[in-house]
């Protein structure tokens, strides 16, 4: 109610017409960047530089890499892909220098031209893959530069991801998200185990194999570890940490009762979590160096699901102290508690954007559907991001704050989906398995 009043108040100051308009429109534009124009890029192609007769996997290597690169550039939201077939140039005819026709690229609507080639080093199927790609800036009529990668065939997709991130970095100064990972929970028979996959859903790798439940993973800021709720002893929960590179595992919290929703502060110095050790679920934070535990909430209701603000100074969390679950905010030491959500009787699973400007959460709609909502931390703006049947859960932000991953049963089985922060480009990224849930997007490297 109060947030609605504020929005109407703002609209009146802009113009009366706006009152009837959806309150979402202006918010959506701002969800990415208010004045950001995507850079139109034309990908001429990644030519196959195969060599002699070759198995199918090699013939298509260039095209495969090209498709990964194009998808990365599209998902970056920094670039828009432009068709440059009108230039009449094939990637296979290009070397390291721009083609004279590139001077007309701006007429095709392209500011940046990309081309390259990829192939196997020899006929041996385990031979290294070479990829090289080059960038020409049509605006300044200048060669920007290129990259030459070599590696095993298993990292061919990663080469495309690296090149996409180089392009994003060159034009924005940000590291890009093409090499980020998503941790998630996948059903394995009656068990649920942790997995990690590339941000586009490829290359899933199993991380735990306990044969029971492992839930709700979160990344360490340096991407080396996951913290999560484990049931290694079936009858009790613990908060565990696993080192991805080694599989080495530690139990960080083994209080009685619930030990759930762990999350590390952006600097890694604190682990916030919920435990029902003292009766009902309360929030605690543990100093990761001294292991000293401090209780943050005190009331007879359930408190859970903490999420740090990017500065690490504040936490958003869920509490049912006012009846159904609602989102609250407080300082990192448990002071200054205030309620954030008032619309609807069920708001849960908050995730604070790494840009700080939004908190994503699960909102129950008047039709009793569990969908994604966004709210500004000052409570002034609220947007419902997803619609339709099914239960959406566990929103997690990309490190660039432009995307969310979440789980949804919109198509029946629970799968993992990606969506832009402006509600566009909904994309399912898991396609196998019986139940995929609890995605957590890694920090950028």
């Amino acid at each position, binding site marked *: 109610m109060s947030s609605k009043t504020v929005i109407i108040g703002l609209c009146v100051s802009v113009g009366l017409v706006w009152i009837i308009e959806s309150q979402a429109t202006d918010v959506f534009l701002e969800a990415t960047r208010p004045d950001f124009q995507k850079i139109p890029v034309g990908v001429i192609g990644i030519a196959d530089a195969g060599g002699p007769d070759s198995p199918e996997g090699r013939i298509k290597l260039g095209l495969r890499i090209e498709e990964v690169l194009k998808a990365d550039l599209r998902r970056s939201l920094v670039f828009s892909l432009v068709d440059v077939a009108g230039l009449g140039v094939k990637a296979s005819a290009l070397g390291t220098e721009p083609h004279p026709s590139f001077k007309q690229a701006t007429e095709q609507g392209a500011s940046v031209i990309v081309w390259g080639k990829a192939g196997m080093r020899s006929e041996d199927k385990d031979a290294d893959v070479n990829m090289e790609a080059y960038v020409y800036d049509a605006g300044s009529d200048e060669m920007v530069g290129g990259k030459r990668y070599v590696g095993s065939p298993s990292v061919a997709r990663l080469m495309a991801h690296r090149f996409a991130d180089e392009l994003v970095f060159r034009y924005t100064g940000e590291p890009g998200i093409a090499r980020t990972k998503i941790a998630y929970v996948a059903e394995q028979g009656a068990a649920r185990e942790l997995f990690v996959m590339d941000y586009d859903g490829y290359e899933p790798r199993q991380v735990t194999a306990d044969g029971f439940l492992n839930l709700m993973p979160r990344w360490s800021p340096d991407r080396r570890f996951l913290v999560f709720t484990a049931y290694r002893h079936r009858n009790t929960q613990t908060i565990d940490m696993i080192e991805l590179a080694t599989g080495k595992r530690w139990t960080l919290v083994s209080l009685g009762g619930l030990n759930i929703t762990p999350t590390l502060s952006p600097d890694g110095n604190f682990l916030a979590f919920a435990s029902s050790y*003292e009766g009902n679920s309360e929030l605690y934070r543990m100093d990761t160096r001294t292991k000293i535990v401090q209780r943050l909430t005190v009331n007879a209701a359930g408190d859970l699901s903490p999420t740090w603000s990017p500065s690490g100074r504040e936490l958003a969390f869920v509490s049912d102290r006012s009846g159904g679950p609602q989102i609250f905010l407080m300082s990192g*030491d448990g002071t200054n508690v205030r309620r*954030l959500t008032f619309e609807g009787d069920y708001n849960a699973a908050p995730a604070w954007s790494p840009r700080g400007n939004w908190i994503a959460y699960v909102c129950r709609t008047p039709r009793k559907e569990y969908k994604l909502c966004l709210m500004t931390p000052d409570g002034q703006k609220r947007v419902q991001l997803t619609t339709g049947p099914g239960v959406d859960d566990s929103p997690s932000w990309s490190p660039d704050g432009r995307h969310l991953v979440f789980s949804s049963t919109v198509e029946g089985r629970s799968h993992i989906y990606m969506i832009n922060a402006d509600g566009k480009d909904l994309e399912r990224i898991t396609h196998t398995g019986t139940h995929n849930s609890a995605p957590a997007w890694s920090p950028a490297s």
Partner: protein
Amino acid sequence: MTRLRSFIGVPLVAGLGLLLVMAGCASKSVRSGGNTATLQQDRGVSGQEAPDLSLSGQDGGGLRGLDKNPSEERVGSNALIAKADPGSAARQFDELRAEQAASAAAGLRDVFFAFDSFVITEEGRQALSRNAEWVKSNQGMQLKIEGHCDERGTSAYNLVLGEKRAKAARNYLVELGVPPGQLSVVSYGKERPFCKEHDESCYSQNRRAHLVVKGGR
């Protein structure tokens, strides 16, 4: 707007409350807002040797920039992930089977709940009365009460709801004279459903406190 600014919860109370509840336990010193309290973990903090997690600066992700004369760059896997260790999987499986067999032999009855509710119904009370008789005549047996939820709502909040259901069942058993020492609770939220259909007949099966004869640890 005023509601947005309403303040709930005071840290001083937090410290004092902890002090009262935890008086007598001694394991780890907890300092918060000038108050000292103690907090004991079941098996202690076994992560004493856990590595330092504080962020000591990033490596820039290995991006080296575009180059007009690029030299060859070797691409290795950027996130080496160890093969999952199936250490306890076989043990879990064996223990689960033993638990199920023992629970079936005991004829324990589960308790079912309404949507979003952890209130024990009349039917639930009858089931628990029978379970109470069994526990009392089988002293030394440990009963585990698992809280389960249907698929609606978030995973995290359902873990809290599942615990409330399990504790409601436990509390009623204690009222019936079952020694608390023979009872333990654990919440599985919506993570170990009995059925997977997206309809009320399945949902109602999953909203339960499931009683099992405890095995293993």
